[in-house]
Structure formats: structure tokens, C-alpha cells
């Protein structure tokens, strides 16, 4: 018995929101204060890594089309990679800051998978609109983790990175409803939920 797709989206949106909020806190108080308690430095990288692991069941169980399976699989892999490299960096097992390139890579792959796996046009329904918006947000926002590789202490870049992740989580919370977007709803989209 599979949970509804909405539930799964909400669960992952909650996880991504937590990652974004941790990043935002770190950007506001600064790395030194944030890491005064040792466990806190592992918090958001560990969460990201765990979300990657938890995406594998989504890939394996939600198989109503091949393209969804591949999209979920690619998100699982890049989240594990990005969370894992961040864990390695904060724990000191990885040294080169270039490992942080895994984040822009994850953003670009995630964004592309969002756009490719959404087969409806922007104004088909709210979910389609948000899938397109999520895809483009990820692709454009990849610039922030990319610049952070060379400017790791920039508070502006850190804040932008955190806010982008918070934004993405908000979009994920609302992207499964059958609902109009700016007054548009295709007659083929089904009955609006609310």
C-alpha cells in the first residue's frame, strides 16, 4: 500500500525546509557560532545525505512511468553525493573545497530532471507550473553554491543559497494539488482538490 504522492512530496519538502533553515541560521549567526556545538556542523549535511538515501524507496516503489523512476533515481544519487561530500568536508575526511562542486552539480541535475519529467506545459495546472518553476529555480540557483566554492565565507551567497532551498521546499509543499494556476486549469487535469 503506497502513500499518496502528496504525502511523499510533503515529507521531502519538510526535510528540505529543515536543511534550508539550518543553512539560513548558519548564514545569520556565522560559521563559528553555528559550529560551537560539534553536532550542529553535521546537521544539514547529514539531513541532505539521509534524504538522498530515503529517495531510493520512492524510486523503487513509484513506477507508474519509467521517466519518473529515472528522475527519482537521479535525485537520490545527487543528494547522497552532495550531502556525503559536505559531511566529508565538515568531518575533515575531504580537504579540497572543489568537492563542494557537487552542490551546483546536484542543483543542475535536479532541475533538469524536474523539467524533463514534467510533460505538461506551464499553465496546465499548479503542479505543472511548479514543476517547471522548480526546475528553473534549481538550474538558475546553481550559481550560488558554485560561487560559494570560491567565496565560502560570503554571507550574501550563503543567505541566497539557504533562501533558495527554503523557496524550493515551499514549492514542493504545494506542487501536487490539482488546482488552477493564475486562473488556468486544463479540463484534462481532473477535479480540483480544493
Amino acid at each position, binding site marked *: 500500500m503506497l502513500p499518496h504522492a502528496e504525502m511523499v512530496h510533503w515529507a521531502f519538502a519538510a526535510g528540505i525546509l529543515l536543511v534550508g533553515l539550518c543553512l539560513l541560521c548558519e548564514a545569520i549567526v556565522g560559521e563559528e557560532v553555528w559550529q560551537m556545538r560539534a553536532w550542529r556542523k553535521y546537521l544539514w549535511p547529514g539531513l541532505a545525505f539521509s534524504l538522498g538515501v530515503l529517495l531510493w524507496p520512492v524510486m523503487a516503489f513509484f513506477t507508474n512511468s519509467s521517466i519518473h523512476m529515472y528522475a527519482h533515481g537521479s535525485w537520490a544519487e545527487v543528494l547522497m553525493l552532495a550531502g*556525503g561530500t559536505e559531511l566529508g568536508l565538515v568531518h575533515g575526511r575531504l580537504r579540497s573545497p572543489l568537492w563542494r562542486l557537487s552542490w551546483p552539480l546536484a542543483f543542475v541535475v535536479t532541475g533538469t530532471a524536474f523539467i524533463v519529467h514534467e510533460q505538461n506545459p506551464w499553465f496546465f495546472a499548479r503542479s505543472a507550473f511548479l514543476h517547471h518553476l522548480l526546475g528553473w529555480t534549481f538550474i538558475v540557483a546553481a550559481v550560488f553554491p558554485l560561487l560559494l566554492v570560491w567565496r565560502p565565507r560570503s554571507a550574501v551567497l550563503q543567505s541566497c543559497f539557504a533562501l533558495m532551498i527554503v523557496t524550493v521546499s515551499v514549492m514542493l509543499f504545494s506542487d501536487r494539488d490539482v488546482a488552477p494556476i493564475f486562473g488556468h486549469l486544463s479540463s484534462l487535469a481532473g477535479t480540483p482538490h480544493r
Partner: protein
Amino acid sequence: MRRLSSIVLAALVFPAAASAHATLQSTTPKFGTEQQRAPALIRLHFDQKVKILPGAIRVLNGVGRNFAGPSRADGTDVVASVRPLKLGSYTVRWRAVSADSHVVSGVWTFGVRVPAPSVNDAYGAGGPTGGEHVVRWLWFLGIALAIGALGLRLIVLRGLEVPRELDRKIAVAAGLGAVVALQSGIAAFSLRAEDALQLPFGKFLYGDLSPMTATRFGTAFVTMTLGFALVLALVYLAWLLDRVAYLVPAFGLSLLLAGGLSFSGHDAVDPGSSWKTELADWVHISAASLWIGALATMAALLWFGAPQLRRQAFLRFARLAPVLIALVLSAGIYLSIVRLPRLHDLWTESYGQVLLVKIGLVCVALLWGAFHHFVVRPALDRADAGFLSRIGRSLAGESLVGISVLLAAAILVDSRPPARPIGHSDRSTLIGGSAATLTP
């Protein structure tokens, strides 16, 4: 380059011509069920309206005769009447046009007073191809690499002072094995589903894979995917936190998951198979994976990466290998007797011929291993650096033979053993006419 960029950009901006991608939510009769009365109607329930194509629903028997009448739309359902069906197994193939103009398709099976065949054996499915053999071989290699690297660290190097760099390399090898197992599992599942659905790749992207996950192959795929994702996470945490203890559950899990290779093949459903043959197959595959994987990892990582451990590792592996070989041979001989009840099947049937090639390769590997055991091991104490270096190359050679054995094993797992003599045949050969297995 600019043109390519424009095409990629255009594909991202305008991903679809128009509208929706329909999802099949339920069917009547249900996937893989045995019907006591022949259904008079086939009903597909979608999450949205779809357009009807000529021949939207086809109900095919074992020789491809269609029993479905014309299809019609009924709200979000597509319905087709069915002419009276006799006792037997049937394949339903459907297709409909989604609002996005993509053709969504699917397949499932049911039986009338007989169990439904696996969807892998649906009418029209061609069976494993050369590409599938290669992918399954990669699946074997990934699992052997994960099991071998973990076994090397936990059994062969147990209690020894292992340099941190070697630990890192072993973790990378085990992680790489898990990643290869994950990717090749996805590829193997996709190829199997593509064959069952009988669709070109472009249309396959919108094919419904749900009936596939209900098959034994699907169950193995889901279990192995989840399992190897966990193995990957455990190996990563072991490396990150410098805790070898995390490798123990990863090793145990990998050994258990090796059974999925036979569970997903023909072995598990062929006549004569039982829990004993499945257990023997698991012992055969896991012991072979540990033997070949540990040998290859030792040759590639330890021999030149940690020369101070070469002697001890070699001696310990030489104690472990005979146990593994005994397990491989005893399980293999038992399975050969069960699957090939007549000796001449070995040279008259394609399954037997592949088995002969595999036996030949195993013999080469055994002779090579015997040379290491009886000639190299006693000479190891007085060996100089040059001798040890040559032994490294010899171990790599034996590993390559082992990898070839895995290729033969991959083909065997995908292949069907010859039919058993009359008296042992199952209902599928009597009823279906096609090569249908009865276990969904």
C-alpha cells in the same frame, strides 16, 4: 556546440506539445490474477481522460490471437468487451493517447482457471537479449566487487594494522561495487520491462512499470535497490567515521542480496526448483562473488598499495579460498544435476553448452588457484620483491578468469534450462503453449 546548446535549451523551455500525462490507476481484471470465470469486459481506469486509439486494448492468448472487441471511452475509463475465453493464460496490451500527445502503454497478464503467467512471459516478449546479458554481468561484477572488498577487509585483513590509505581504497571499491549494482539493477529492470512492454525507448519512457514490480524480477529489483542503497550509505559512514564495524552489516546485507540475482532469474521458477535449489544458488553465487571479488581486490589494491601486508594477506586468503571453492563446487554440482537431468543436455542444449564453457573457465581458475596454493604459498617465505611482484600479476590473471566465469553465470541465470522429461512437466507447458512460467 551553439546549435546543441540551443536544442537543449529549447527542449527544456518547451518540454511538451500540450497537456497531460495519464496514469493507469486500476484494471479489471487485476494484474496477475487467476479468474475462475472468464471476464466479459476489460476496464482500464486512468486518473484523467485519454483518447482512444484503434486496438487500444488487446487480449492475447498464447499464440497471439486477439479476443478483445473495439474499445470505447467511459469517463476516465477505457473499456473493451471480450469474446468468450477458454481455460488458459492471457496477455492484455493497452495503449492510449495522453493529453500531452504521448502514447502511454502497458501490459499485464491474467489466467482463466490457471495462475497468471509472469508479465515477463507475456505474449510477444522476446526474452533476454545480448544487451541484457551484459547488463546482468555488470550486476554480478558490482555485487562481487562490493562483497569481495568488504570480505577482504573483514576476513582477510582482520586484526592486521591496515594503513588508512588502503582502508580508503577498499571503501571506494566497495562503494563503487554498490553503485554499479544499483545502476545495473536499474538498467536490467528497464530492459526487462522494455521487452515485456514491447516498446521503443521513446515510448517506453511513458510505459507503466507497475505490473513489472509485482513479478519476482521486480521484487528482486526493489529489494536489491533498497539494500544496495543502504550498503552504500553504511560503507560511506564507515569511511567517514573510521569505523570498520559499520562494514559488518554492509557485508552481511551484500551477501544476502546476492540471492536476488538468482531470485530474479529463471532459476527460481523453473520446474524442479525448490527452496533447496534457491538456497544452493544463493550459496553458489555468494561464495563465488566473495572468492572472485576478494581476489580481484587483493590483486588491484593490496598487492601494490600495501606491500607490507602481501604475505599475510596471501596466506589468509589461501586458507579462505578452499572453503569458498568447496561451497561453489558442491552447490554448482547439485544445481547442474537438478537442471540437467540428462547428461547429453550438456552438449545438445544451449543452456548446457554455456554451462560447459563456465565449467571450463572454472577449471582454469581452479588450476590457477591450485598453483598459487601448492606452489606459491610454500615459496612465499623465501620470496624476493621481484617474485612477489610477478605473483601480483598472476593474481590479476586469475581474477580475470573469475570475471569471465561471472559472464557465463550471468548468461545462465538469464537462460532457461532444457525442459524436463515428460512426467515432470508443469501446467504451463500443457496449457499455455508458449514458454510461460506460472509464478507471477
